[in-house]
């Protein structure tokens, strides 16, 4: 009796009008084209910029790592420099001192990141919110002042050499490797949020009682969330070490942890595309300053600052603007495009509805400026 209707309307057809086959081909085609352009630029650009792009990809992975904690589990980690740094030192240590291959070092660093973050996850079982962020903060400081000072790891402060793998020694090839890993992390992040782990983590974030009533193990998924974040951070740490080819403690300070939190906020909490874009911007920003001569002159000569320090001025400013004008961050701004890639019709507003009420404040400000300009 039901077979006729089942044939006519299979389960998935009941959900959302899907694009035609040609629509999907167009979307996948554009996506591949975008990826190809990025990879082609990375492979052909001058070595200086290829190296910077490698850093941008690593920042993308770090951003996604923090996004798991901030966006998905709803906690704040101010100690991510400890996870990244610890893994960077371990990776370099295993490759240089223990004679392991780069790939073993990378794997061990990823595992170390997952384990150390898992420990923090166990703490997070009892503490959350402000107190947890304080714990992560102190965790970071303790790591910096203890582990990062161990002479065997840092070679007495001189830095641990971290050679690149033989096939990826040049700037271009290592940058490509970093982008491939960024792609892998994006895939994992996407699948995680599409399947049971993502739903469980979001449920735990909202209410532990509700999550448990859906048979979700609150303990397990809290720790798992932190471990995934730690694994991403560990992977990024290893790549960071071998990009720089020497790991020094100074690379991992609280300053970095702060910038990483800011870039996730600017990218949009829980929005992976926005977070990657914002993270790359934050990684490249100090070098972008060098492209604009008057700005470079102003920063270096007038302000007497290194362009890198400017990130800590621009970062909070951007974060503030984001929170006031666009709480969804970069991810919200590019949402018409990401929605199209997901298979919806292209429209500036979700479901083709125009927003009710006043036009957006940012749009109003812009319009005002344009009018005055005329």
């Amino acid at each position: 009796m039901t077979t006729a209707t089942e044939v006519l309307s299979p389960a998935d057809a009941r959900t959302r009008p899907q694009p035609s086959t040609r629509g999907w081909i167009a979307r996948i085609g554009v996506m591949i084209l975008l990826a190809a352009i990025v990879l082609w630029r990375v492979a052909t650009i001058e070595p200086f910029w290829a190296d910077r792009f490698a850093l941008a990809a690593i920042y993308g992975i770090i951003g996604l790592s923090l996004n798991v904690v901030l966006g998905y589990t709803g906690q704040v980690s101010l100690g991510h420099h400890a996870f990244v740094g610890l893994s960077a030192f371990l990776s370099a240590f295993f490759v240089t001192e223990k004679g392991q291959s780069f790939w073993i070092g990378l794997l061990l660093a990823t595992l170390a990141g997952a384990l150390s973050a898992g420990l923090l996850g166990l703490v997070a079982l009892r503490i959350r919110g402000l107190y947890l962020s304080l714990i992560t903060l102190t965790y970071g400081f303790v790591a910096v002042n203890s582990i990062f000072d161990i002479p065997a790891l840092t070679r007495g402060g001189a830095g641990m050499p971290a050679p690149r793998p033989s096939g990826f020694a040049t700037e271009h090839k290592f940058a490509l490797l970093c982008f491939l890993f960024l792609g892998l992390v994006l895939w994992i992040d996407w699948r995680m949020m599409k399947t049971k782990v993502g739903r469980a983590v979001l449920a735990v974030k909202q209410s532990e009682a509700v999550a448990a009533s859906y048979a979700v193990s609150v303990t397990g998924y809290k720790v798992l969330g932190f471990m995934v974040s730690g694994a991403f951070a560990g992977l990024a740490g290893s790549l960071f070490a071998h990009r720089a080819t020497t790991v020094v403690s100074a690379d991992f300070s609280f300053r970095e942890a702060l910038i990483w939190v800011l870039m996730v906020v600017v990218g949009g909490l829980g929005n992976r595309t926005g977070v990657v874009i914002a993270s790359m911007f934050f990684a490249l920003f100090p070098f972008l300053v060098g492209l604009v001569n008057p700005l470079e002159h102003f920063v270096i000569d007038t302000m007497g600052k290194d362009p890198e320090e400017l990130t800590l001025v621009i970062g909070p400013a951007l974060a503030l603007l984001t929170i006031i004008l666009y709480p969804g961050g970069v991810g919200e701004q590019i949402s018409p495009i990401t929605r199209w890639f997901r298979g919806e019709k292209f429209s500036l507003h979700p479901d083709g509805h125009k927003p009710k009420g006043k036009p957006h404040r940012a749009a109003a400000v812009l319009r005002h400026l344009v009018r005055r300009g005329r």
Partner: protein
Amino acid sequence: MAVLEVRDMGIRFGGLVALDDVNIEVPEWEIVGLIGPNGAGKTTLFNCIMGLYQPNSGTVTYRGRDVSLLPTHRRVAMGIGRTFQNIGLVRELSVIENMMIAQHARIGYGALAGIFGSVRSFAEERKLKAYGLDVLDFLGLSDLANEKLDGLPYGTLKLLEIGTVLATDPDLVLLDEPSSGMGPEEAHQLGERLLKLRQTLNLTVLMIEHHVPLVVDVCDYVYVLNFGKILTEGRPKQVQAHPEVIAAYLGSEAEKVDADAQEIRDEADSGVAAASGGGKERDRGVS
């Protein structure tokens, strides 16, 4: 054998005794009501049964097995489903995704397989979605499958919550005020739906409910909780007539009494008005 047995349940919050020596039994295929004034400890009892609170004393036995020491999610996986007084749904997920998370215990792939995107995880996700849509169809909510929860009416969310509990595949369901926020007509429909659900899914139900007509309509047996103790128990009609129950409700729900008294006064006034009006007419008739 009873599906659920609560024995000597007691819990204190500081100096406050929230539950004291509570004994409850829910037999197979019955709908058992749990009523009592606000603050009587009804939801606290639910939380103790689910393991969200750790009681100071007492045991919870589910189908002959002592589950007192199991964590909440294990109890749910065994077949105890539960709704919340103020809607236990995940706001960040869409309607269909809420139906999918409700099936969490029966997902046929591991967490890591899902994270790395194994072929099987894709197929299993399609199955979860199809089953979720079937349940939504059953409740007449399938049009809303892709909607976000924000902006959906309260009654719809209440119904959806019942849907998610059904998707956890329970055989005992604890409902916390399922008719809250509903009008009398909707509440009546809900009662019929509950009876139908029991008929088709062989459910056993324990429910907290304030709406008396609904309790009388659907419940086979009623426990009355007051100040953390079982005041009385019995068939709905018997309990309704019990003097202590009337006293407990009237004593604590002063507002309602006031409202009732106001109604009586209004009626009396209008009666007087009608009478005096009649009097005028009579007067006129005389003149």
